[in-house]
């Protein structure tokens, strides 16, 4: 079952290959047609537009996109954490088949943490500077469980050990500022897994960290998953992390999904022109160096002023200026039985820049 090798410093042995799934694992979290709006100057602005996604138990779904693409907002919406005046207009969020979105707030609060948990990019602002990290973990435990103070403290030390904080019995009394950025993120992970949630949503969990620490944190999350079968949603803009850690990928642009599929499918056969352009534009360690990067021209759009057609059309080297791309509302995701789906009228056409290259 554990499909990722345990951490092994200095090891050069290849990681165990992904075990062929004998039976597909159950879906842990499913979003259906999730749509979130904020009031704007000219009526409501749709910031999340009909997003449907699923992540399986033990699996990792990476959600990629630029800032403003709605990747964080999608999951804030799913957890009922959209700040007013924004609101979820329609859609469902199902955990183990049951919709959680229309639960009373108190019940939703209990689900958060116990069943579904989220960690954020900046570990310093997410921790309270005036309490020790031990007190903060104890608070999480006691808010959800009937557990005495000393038992909760013992559990906090256990959790710190689990996230590989050295000398946890001593560090439990440290304040957040006494820890490094990487250690703070480990503490947040400890808090997030304190109640053994089935689903963990990690929003850019390593963006503020150095690459060396980033790899350690994500390896830790992968190990925890392998042990507990927790589903992981990894919100990131880093395609390198996606290649290393994700089973499935969802690409978002301007509040909409433009492509979903297994990591292998999306990376080897990207379909949507945006995904294709994104892959071309990133410098690679083994790519050519003496030529210009094939950049995506223009800027990500403002979701309050989207064109009537495809949101990517103004920057798209396939569809720019095509009548249907400009005027027809984008298609919902469509695809084959492999589960690889994309939302483009013309994905079969060659890219103009690809043709030149």
């Amino acid at each position, binding site marked *: 079952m554990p499909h990722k090798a345990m951490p092994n*410093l200095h090891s050069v042995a290849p990681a165990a290959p992904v075990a062929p799934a004998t039976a597909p694992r159950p879906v842990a979290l499913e979003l259906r047609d999730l749509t979130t709006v904020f009031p704007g100057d000219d009526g409501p602005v749709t910031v999340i537009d009909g997003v449907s996604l699923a992540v399986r138990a033990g699996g990792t779904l990476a959600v990629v996109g630029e*800032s403003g693409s709605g990747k964080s907002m999608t999951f804030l919406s799913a957890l009922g954490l959209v700040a007013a005046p924004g609101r979820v207009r329609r859609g469902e969020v199902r955990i183990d088949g049951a919709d959680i979105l229309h639960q009373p707030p108190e019940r939703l609060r209990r689900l958060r943490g116990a069943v579904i948990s989220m960690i954020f990019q900046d570990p310093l602002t997410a921790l309270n500077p005036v309490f020790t990290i031990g007190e903060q973990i104890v608070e999480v435990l006691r808010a959800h469980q009937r557990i005495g103070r000393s038992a909760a403290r013992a559990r906090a030390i256990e959790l710190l050990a689990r996230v590989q904080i050295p000398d946890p019995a001593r560090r439990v009394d440290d304040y957040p500022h006494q820890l490094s950025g990487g250690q703070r993120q480990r503490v947040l992970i400890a808090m997030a897994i304190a109640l053994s949630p089935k689903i963990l949503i990690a929003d850019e969990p390593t963006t503020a960290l*150095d690459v060396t620490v980033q*790899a350690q944190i994500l390896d830790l999350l992968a190990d925890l998953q392998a042990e507990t079968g927790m589903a992981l949603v990894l919100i990131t803009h880093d395609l*390198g992390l996606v*290649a290393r850690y994700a089973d499935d990928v969802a690409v978002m642009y301007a509040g909409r999904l433009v492509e979903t599929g297994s*990591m292998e499918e999306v990376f080897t056969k990207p379909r949507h022109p945006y995904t294709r352009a994104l892959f071309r534009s*990133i410098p690679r360690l083994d790519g050519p160096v003496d030529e210009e990067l094939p950049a995506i021209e223009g800027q990500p759009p403002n979701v309050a002023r989207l064109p009537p057609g495809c949101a990517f059309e103004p920057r798209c080297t396939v569809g720019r200026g095509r009548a249907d791309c400009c005027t027809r509302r984008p298609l919902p995701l469509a695809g084959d039985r492999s589960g690889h789906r994309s939302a483009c009228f013309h994905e079969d056409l060659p890219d103009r820049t690809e043709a030149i290259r």
Partner: protein
Amino acid sequence: MSDTLSAPPPALELVDATRVFTRRGGLFKKAGKAVRAVDGVSLTIRAGETLGLVGESGSGKSTLGRLALRLVEPTSGRLLVDGRDVTGVSKAEMQAMRRDIQMVFQDPYGSLDPRVTIGQSIAEPLKVHGLWDGDGPQKVAGVMSLVGLDPSRADRYPHQFSGGQRQRIGIARALTLDPKILVLDEPVSALDVSIQAQIINLLQRIQRERGLSYLFIAHDLAVVRHVSHRIAVMYLGKVVEMAERDNLYRRPLHPYTVSLLAAVPIADVRMRNRRRTSVTMGEIGSATNVPPGCRFHPRCYRARLVAAAGGVPTERSGDALLPRACLIDQPELRACGGADQVACHFPETPETRSEVATAVLQDIGYPPIRPIPL
């Protein structure tokens, strides 16, 4: 002075530059220990060349960038611009020197005054240097066009621009005085992936057209590879490796460089079923408490491998067995294969390359990975 036979002096040269920060004592705090943020660094950048500077946060790379402009004064060492020693020159002379050397910051929003139009921001260096004249507005329009901004938008405010456009404004501002050197401190790290490529292309085009020299500070090794001619790797205030670009990625000499390469995520499906490449343990130490001997030894996989292989004097350090040299002697930066330099007692030369380094090089595509036959 004009010895026409000798090569032109480097555009920028740092000789044994050191910067020590000390925290003053306060009501509740003892005076802090001295921090050698930059510790005896020497480097040169030739005209038209990009020197990449990489390392983790806390490595001293940003302080080094500021030393190059004397935004931070060196505690010791020398700074030469175009062969001229400007270490001790007066503030006024330094101001004049800054016409030649300018800085671009990571966060373009933080470095622009929100109440000032971008046209005024871009014009400001001209005014500060007393160079604002009838041609001023034209110069501003010129650099705006150069960086891909519409000059007719000069009367707008920073918040009316996106992150990528604001970085263009930051670059335009650095270019108004027509400098010879730009210090670029993480110029694309805060930008979206699709915008990063635009800015990288822009910087490279400007370099070609104007023959600028860049000190390019970044943590993204793929970006650094794309833009740099040579690369310096810093660890806790010291340069531990300095190499030609391709050499650094093809035959990294320092175990720290190997560790950085191992940690870089690569957007390639081949990474999936390969290995766990966490070859470095723990986090960068504190510059207040630099370990004796080689400052990388607490995290070094290579030191452990060399000690385990035997044949060198070893010593226990905590629960690790390490070569005594790594624990006692601070390695100096020395030539190791051509012009490349490394500060390591047991560098990863091609002849002595460890299994770890070999595996990491395979992972990143050197030598190129052939498709695995099905």
